[in-house]
């Protein structure tokens, strides 16, 4: 190359370090290019090879997750996983974290997190139909944590409602380990006709790359902004670059972008499409080119810019929100532009697909334009380093294991302990539109969300054999468990998530995960990550649930302390027939309450290791987690899904008789998780505004103990079930599945009574659960 070769760098060896690249990485770039990279090229590699974009610390471990299954149409590696739902429909699923942005500007951090995950879904050709928001904050007595929590909830509400996608569930956890570093994870699920599936690949030499949506500003230039302080630009720009890189979400732009993109895809006007997320245009252009095995020429001048005087590296690395890159044939361009015009979506041809395999950044498309960067496209995307970072089992785990919480003093009053554990997340989810699209059969508040499988513009599946009628979604994580034993804890988390889905009558078919961990340069953190992945792999393999996607969020630490390991999973379940609402997680007056669980001695009791009670009441986090018997758990999932099934009548039982299906006499159901049987009973009492009188659990350990594979059910008395004893019928099925069942007592009245341990009013419980969040967060959480 002669005149048009990229400007050569100064002899500035510190630049790559300032950009976050190691000396070895810089050397690798030089050898890939066969020459020194220039500043722009270095900036592009820096963002693409960042932990966030390249998964360089986690990639060597993620490969151990099982990702194959009959229903998996698209596994990890694409923008979202896609699962075949039968009947010509598919479900796209993806989870992402927006932890760090939310710590700085909670509202916009969370809002842009929602925006980003939506784009991952509609870029696959799917109409987003549901959002979930697993949230973790510092304790409510910390003013900054309250400010973050209320801002995050407002941001999800503000963006999700306005963009017109219902938020149907999530999690809400307050824990000291998240003070200063909240976890804001967002899951999105979409529906598409299986034949509309598009991938983010550029193909067809001569095709055009069209940038859709917002203008590009200096948003989220992040680490790259140090370029300025390295003397890359003049002083005024250096000053400007110190502005915190906060992005502002525009749900209205995103809504128009969704409608425009789905219309383009429906009309088959694009050959590939990709959202712009982290690393902005650099990522979208290099990934689409790399996946398509082609090259691309990109014009900086063609990119609509929101601010004057932007440098090429700013345009190429900006993370301005609400943008998409569509690959279209020249013949389709006019049609594409007219769809965009109708939806008032800005569209500009910024790139051209070439056969060179190289990503070239040009000042413009005019003849004689300068080439600002010229790199093999695939190297940005595929040649990022993979690190086998050192791992070490934390020394402190032995101490934690020997700190047996069974030796903690028993409560003076189990009833008041129970009241102190209650939190009603309704204060949060009442701020979310969870009903749009008329799909939400089980809204937030149940064990899992249950949605009709349908969406505007996507025909509902014909009632063909094998076509799912509904989907169930649950997100789950438990850092208390994972801190004691990341492998066993993650197994328990996957087990719980699958059970939540079963409780609304679904069978789990796929899972996505968001691995929130501390600093990967700490060997203990890498060990935790590796163990969690092994645990997830073991549980998913045993339960037959492929992992179709995920996200890794590292460097979650504040004041030098890593967060407890927090793998969060989102489980997708399918339901074949949907004719009634599944049993609510509520006590129903006049019914018998039974506990289903493992038959092993003590299996129904659980343990206080890593339990909510030990932590919240006694400030104790220790012990050895009870193991999960995954074979038994798989049988439990099948049993629970069938007794909770929302199918009206059992199609296998011959002609319709109007009788409930065998086992469907269960009228209330709730799994037992955090807080043990005590909390599960109280939650059911609150949901049903009905008390209970149960004998057993007999001790506070059995009352608050946590352990896997347990479910509470309500059964009508024999008289109401036409004389047959539902308990006996259930006991037969439970025994056949190799599980145990015990009769705990009856539901009714206005007091929650566990003989010898608890006697509190249902009203008291309702009030206690209700007051927590409103009191703490009601005034906007107070000052930062």
């Amino acid at each position: 190359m002669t005149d048009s070769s990229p400007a050569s760098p100064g002899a500035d060896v510190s630049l790559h370090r300032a950009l976050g690249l190691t000396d070895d990485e810089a050397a690798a770039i030089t050898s890939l290019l066969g020459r020194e990279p220039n500043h722009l090229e270095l900036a592009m590699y820096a963002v693409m090879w960042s932990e966030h974009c390249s998964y360089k610390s986690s990639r060597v471990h993620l490969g151990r997750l099982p990702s194959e299954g009959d229903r998996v149409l698209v596994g990890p590696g694409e923008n979202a996983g896609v699962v075949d739902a039968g009947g010509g429909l598919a479900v796209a699923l993806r989870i992402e974290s927006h932890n760090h942005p939310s710590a700085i500007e909670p509202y916009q951090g969370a809002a842009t997190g929602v925006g980003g995950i939506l784009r991952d879904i509609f870029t696959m050709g799917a109409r987003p139909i549901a959002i979930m928001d697993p949230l973790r904050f510092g304790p409510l007595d910390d003013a900054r944590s309250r400010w973050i929590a209320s801002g995050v909830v407002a941001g999800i509400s503000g963006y999700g409602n306005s963009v017109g996608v219902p938020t149907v569930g999530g999690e809400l956890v307050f824990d000291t380990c998240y003070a200063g570093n909240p976890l804001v994870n967002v899951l999105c699920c979409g529906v598409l006709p299986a034949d509309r599936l598009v991938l983010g690949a550029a193909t067809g030499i001569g095709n055009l790359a069209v940038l859709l949506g917002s203008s590009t500003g200096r948003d989220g230039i992040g680490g790259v902004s140090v370029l300025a302080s390295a003397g890359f630009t003049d002083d005024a720009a250096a000053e400007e670059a110190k502005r915190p890189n906060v992005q502002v979400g525009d749900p209205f732009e995103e809504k128009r972008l969704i409608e425009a993109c789905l219309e383009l895809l429906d009309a088959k006007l694009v050959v590939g499409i990709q959202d712009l997320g982290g690393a902005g245009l650099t990522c979208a252009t290099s990934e689409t080119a790399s996946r398509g095995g082609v090259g691309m020429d990109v014009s900086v001048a063609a990119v609509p810019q929101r601010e004057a005087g932007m440098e090429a590296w700013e345009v190429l690395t900006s993370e301005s929100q609400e943008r998409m890159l569509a690959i279209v044939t020249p013949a389709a361009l006019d049609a594409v532009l007219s769809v965009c015009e109708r939806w008032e979506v800005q569209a500009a041809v910024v790139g051209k697909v070439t056969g060179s395999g190289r990503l070239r950044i040009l000042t413009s498309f005019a003849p004689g334009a300068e080439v600002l960067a010229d790199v093999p496209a695939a190297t940005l995307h595929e040649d990022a380093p993979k690190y086998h970072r050192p791992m070490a089992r934390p020394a402190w785990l032995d101490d934690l294991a020997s700190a047996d919480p069974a030796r903690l003093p028993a409560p003076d009053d189990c009833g008041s302990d129970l009241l102190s554990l209650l939190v009603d997340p309704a204060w949060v989810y009442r701020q979310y539109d969870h009903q749009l699209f008329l799909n939400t059969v089980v809204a937030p508040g149940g064990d899992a969300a249950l949605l009709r499988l349908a969406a505007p513009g996507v025909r509902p599946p014909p009632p063909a054999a094998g076509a799912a009628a509904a989907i169930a979604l649950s997100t789950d994580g438990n850092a208390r468990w994972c801190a004691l034993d990341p492998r066993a804890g993650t197994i328990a988390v996957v087990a719980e998530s699958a059970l939540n889905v079963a409780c609304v009558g679904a069978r789990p078919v796929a899972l996505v995960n968001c691995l929130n961990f501390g600093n990967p340069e700490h060997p203990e953190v890498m060990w935790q990550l590796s163990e969690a992945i092994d645990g997830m792999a073991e549980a998913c393999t045993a339960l037959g649930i492929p992992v179709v996607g995920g996200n890794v969020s590292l460097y979650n630490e504040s004041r030098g302390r890593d967060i407890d390991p927090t793998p969060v999973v989102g489980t997708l379940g399918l339901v074949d027939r949907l004719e009634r609402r599944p049993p609510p997680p509520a006590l129903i007056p006049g019914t018998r309450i039974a506990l289903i669980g493992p038959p092993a001695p003590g299996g129904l009791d659980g343990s206080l290791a890593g339990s909510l009670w030990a932590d919240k009441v006694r400030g104790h986090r220790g012990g050895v987690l009870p193991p999960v018997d995954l074979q038994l758990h798989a049988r439990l999932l099948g049993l629970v899904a069938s007794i909770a099934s929302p199918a009206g009548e059992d199609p296998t039982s011959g002609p319709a008789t109007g009788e409930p299906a065998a086992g469907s006499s269960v009228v209330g159901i709730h799994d037992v998780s955090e807080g043990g049987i005590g909390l599960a009973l109280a939650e059911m009492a609150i949901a049903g505004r009905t008390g209970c009188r149960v004998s057993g659990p007999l001790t506070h350990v059995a009352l608050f103990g946590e352990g896997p594979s347990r479910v509470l059910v309500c059964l009508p008395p024999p008289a109401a079930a036409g004389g047959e004893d539902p308990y006996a019928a259930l006991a037969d099925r439970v025994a056949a599945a190799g599980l145990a069942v015990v009769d705990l007592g009856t539901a009714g009245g206005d007091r929650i009574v566990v003989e010898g341990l608890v006697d509190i009013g249902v009203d008291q419980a309702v009030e206690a659960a209700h007051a927590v969040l409103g009191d703490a967060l009601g005034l906007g959480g107070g000052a930062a």
Partner: protein
Amino acid sequence: MTARVGVVLFPGTNCEHDVIAAVEALGGSASLVWHGETSLGDVDAVILPGGFAHGDYLRPGAIARFSPVMAAVSQLASAGAPVVGICNGFQVLTEAQLLPGALQKNAGLSFLCDTVAIEVASSASVLTAGLPVGTTLRVPINHFEGNYTCDAATLEELRAGGRIILRYADNPNGSVYDIAGIANAAGNVVGLMPHPERACDPLLGSDDGRLLLGALLASAGARVGS
């Protein structure tokens, strides 16, 4: 005869498909009308559905009321045909001054999505015709700006004229006089914050909304017949 309902789509509207599904399930026919159209086409009634027209930027309805289609909506309203604004649609109708008053932020200063009890307070509207006063319905609400506000004289006029058609049993948003829905003097232009289309299937928790939308289709159908 089947009533034909035009459902107006502004950029940012999101309940249009739900409204169409509900109208069709009740035997009506429904079609989308793009906000940039100057004509509503052949329709007997029009619904402005919920959502966030133009992102609710500035104020809900503030930009939407300038859309070309609004002149046609206003004409249809003067001609006496049913015009119903649901949630964001109600906000658009007040901004367009087809209905009096304004909708402010909820008193609790947060978005509210819930299913609430509302009572029919007047049968003198296309949406409540035939429903006895006092009938209680369970219908979802879903809004941030649903706190109905008007001056004392307007409130008196609304009360005296039987134009307050729906009231909350337990006021969720601070609306004056627990107002959930109002009508114009002729009863053909109606605005309400609750979403009847979300209450048309027992599988989703309530089908009380069928009574309201059913009344609307009957009113629209009656005009066709006459």
